[in-house]
């Protein structure tokens, strides 16, 4: 635990502190704009962090992630439009409260609940992450291979509505990950004679295309020409009654546990955490019939649940190298940009950096209380007066500058466009994008591990299954793939 002292000292420097404050503000703004999401914002931000200190770059990721999860509640409460998918459950009681003239109170509840969920999640990350990382000391190449496979299988199966399409997406990501020079044999693979492909397609370029262009095209499709009127964004300041906050404590505790549990599970996202927390709060309430009609406990449960998912989703990413969701994958990409190898060794080789990021997740959750007050929220809400159609070219410009500065290659702009158009179509045919990115990140690690394991065993493939830990991981991976298919078959038989 000594590394936390060094990590905290490193975080309490001017650069990371300024980055956290600015990024949390920016995150709330992004969350407040329907159509923009944290994944898109972080994907756009990553190329710009090349020249920054790793802790400053990670501070920005933490701020945008935590800030935007709260920001999503602003349009959810004021307009019944969830700013991010994770704030859908917030609309159930937030909007009825706003209709009653209690919008400011609903926003205050959302702000406190988001901050408390985020703090609980960060504490879980700081305590469970290092413990889980110790397990990886027993890992050999076979375990590394299976852990990568398990991560991809679980994300592939759980992220979308169709397990086969999820696994197909993960396989596609793994295949893209093989492009370029093979690090073990030195032979070029799938380069089509192009020198720019020798290093493989740039992960960040593909990421920006896949995650930023589809929302831009959707904004263009919606074609919002007016924005909102100021009358729709009116807010009255209402203080909490004495002891009112104490009434939320049981909901916050319950929702924090649910959010942390969901966050650790690879593939499950903040929206699932919010829905589960909301249902749990309704079931535990003496007045379940008031839920959906403007019960502040509903807002508290949903917001606390979705923010409690944030830092917890980093637990498998930072300790095992398995990103549980796309933001965790982006964090691992940010580490790759700074020359660090994501994977089980990350924690042991860079404890101050990993610990620093954990502290930043905690501090940015606290910052929500500072930047999410009614005055600030009133300011953020004004951003929704901007016509959506003006955001389309603005985001395209940011995508272009972000991608170009990575390598200074015009070809990257075309790769980004192609990846974005492919991402748009893939999403429309229900093929999830997250497993593709995870495949690209974890693919090289999986390939190197399996080939090392086979070299050690002189080509004997049973080496991958004979060690107890690798056998457990292999069966878990197999179970993760086979279980949903069996469920599907059983469902069909019943019909």
């Amino acid at each position: 635990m000594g590394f936390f002292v060094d990590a905290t000292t490193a975080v309490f420097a001017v650069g990371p502190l300024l980055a956290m404050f600015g990024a949390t503000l920016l995150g709330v703004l992004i969350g407040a704009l329907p159509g923009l999401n944290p994944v898109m914002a972080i994907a756009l931000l990553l190329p710009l962090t090349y020249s920054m200190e790793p802790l400053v770059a990670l501070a920005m990721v933490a701020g945008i992630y935590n800030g935007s999860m709260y920001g999503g509640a602003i349009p959810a409460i004021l307009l019944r439009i969830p700013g991010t998918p994770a704030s859908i459950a917030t609309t159930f009681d937030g909007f009825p409260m706003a209709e009653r003239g209690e919008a400011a109170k609903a926003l205050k509840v959302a702000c406190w609940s988001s901050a408390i969920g985020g703090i609980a999640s960060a504490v879980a990350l700081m305590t469970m992450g290092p413990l889980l990382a110790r397990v990886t000391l027993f890992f050999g190449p076979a375990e590394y291979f299976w852990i990568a496979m398990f991560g991809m299988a679980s994300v592939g199966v759980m992220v979308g509505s169709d397990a086969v399409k999820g696994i197909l997406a993960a396989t596609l990501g793994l295949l893209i990950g093989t492009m370029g020079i093979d690090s073990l044999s030195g032979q070029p693979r799938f380069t089509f004679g192009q020198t720019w492909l020798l290093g493989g397609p740039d992960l960040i370029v593909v990421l920006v295309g896949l995650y930023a262009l589809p929302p831009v095209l959707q904004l263009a499709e919606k074609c919002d020409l007016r924005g909102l009127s100021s009358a729709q964004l009116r807010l009255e300041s209402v203080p909490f009654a004495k002891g009112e906050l104490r009434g939320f404590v049981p909901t916050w505790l319950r929702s924090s546990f649910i959010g942390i549990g969901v966050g650790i599970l690879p593939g499950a996202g903040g929206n699932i955490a919010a829905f589960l927390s909301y249902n749990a709060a309704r079931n535990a309430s003496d007045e379940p019939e008031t839920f959906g009609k403007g019960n502040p406990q509903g807002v508290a449960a949903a917001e606390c649940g979705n923010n409690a998912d944030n830092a917890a989703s980093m637990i498998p990413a930072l300790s095992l190298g398995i990103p549980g969701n796309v933001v965790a994958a982006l964090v691992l990409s940010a580490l790759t940009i700074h020359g660090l190898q994501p994977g089980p060794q990350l924690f042991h080789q860079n404890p101050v950096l990993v610990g620093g990021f954990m502290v930043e997740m905690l501090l940015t959750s606290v910052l929500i209380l500072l930047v999410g007050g009614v005055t600030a929220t009133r300011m953020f809400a004004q951003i929704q007066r901007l016509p959506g159609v003006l955001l389309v070219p603005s985001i395209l410009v940011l995508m272009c500058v972000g991608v170009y500065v990575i390598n200074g290659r015009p070809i990257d702009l075309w790769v980004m466009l192609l990846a974005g158009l492919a991402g748009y179509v893939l999403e429309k045919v229900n093929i999830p994008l997250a497993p593709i990115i995870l495949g690209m990140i974890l693919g090289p690690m999986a390939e190197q591990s399996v080939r090392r394991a086979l070299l050690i065993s002189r080509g004997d493939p049973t080496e991958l299954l004979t060690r107890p830990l690798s056998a457990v991981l292999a069966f878990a991976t197999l179970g993760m793939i086979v279980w949903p298919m069996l469920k599907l078959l059983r469902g069909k038989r019943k019909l």
Partner: protein
Amino acid sequence: MEKRQDLLTGLIFTGLGLAAAWMARSYSGAGGTYPMVLGLALAIFGGVIALRSVRAKVNAVRPLSEAPRNLFLATVVATGYIALVMPLGFFTASVLLMLVMPVVLGFRQPVYLVLMALVFMALVWVVFSAVLEKPLPPEFWSTLWREA
């Protein structure tokens, strides 16, 4: 399930997987076996999706686009922008994009549009060129200016 879309998606991935496996034959040792296995797996999963769509009894229509006209226009303008960034320069092409894209999509408030384009591009210039000093594609007029 959208039968036609899924059939086409499945067939595309089957073709892609088989092509990758075929190409991987020329790579030596384990460096070839690994992508070959992945290619075959992709082909199998693609085949499963195609087969499932053929056998599906229900066909739930799922449109690829909510507003095909706007999607088409936005894609064309975005492609044009990428094509013009290098010959015109980053800022010139971007200002053009900021002005053209909203108009093409039906925005008709010229003053608001010009103001937004100027303020936003000024902000981009301050952040990326002045503060972060990121090298961006040079403006065509700066080269002409220098030559003159």
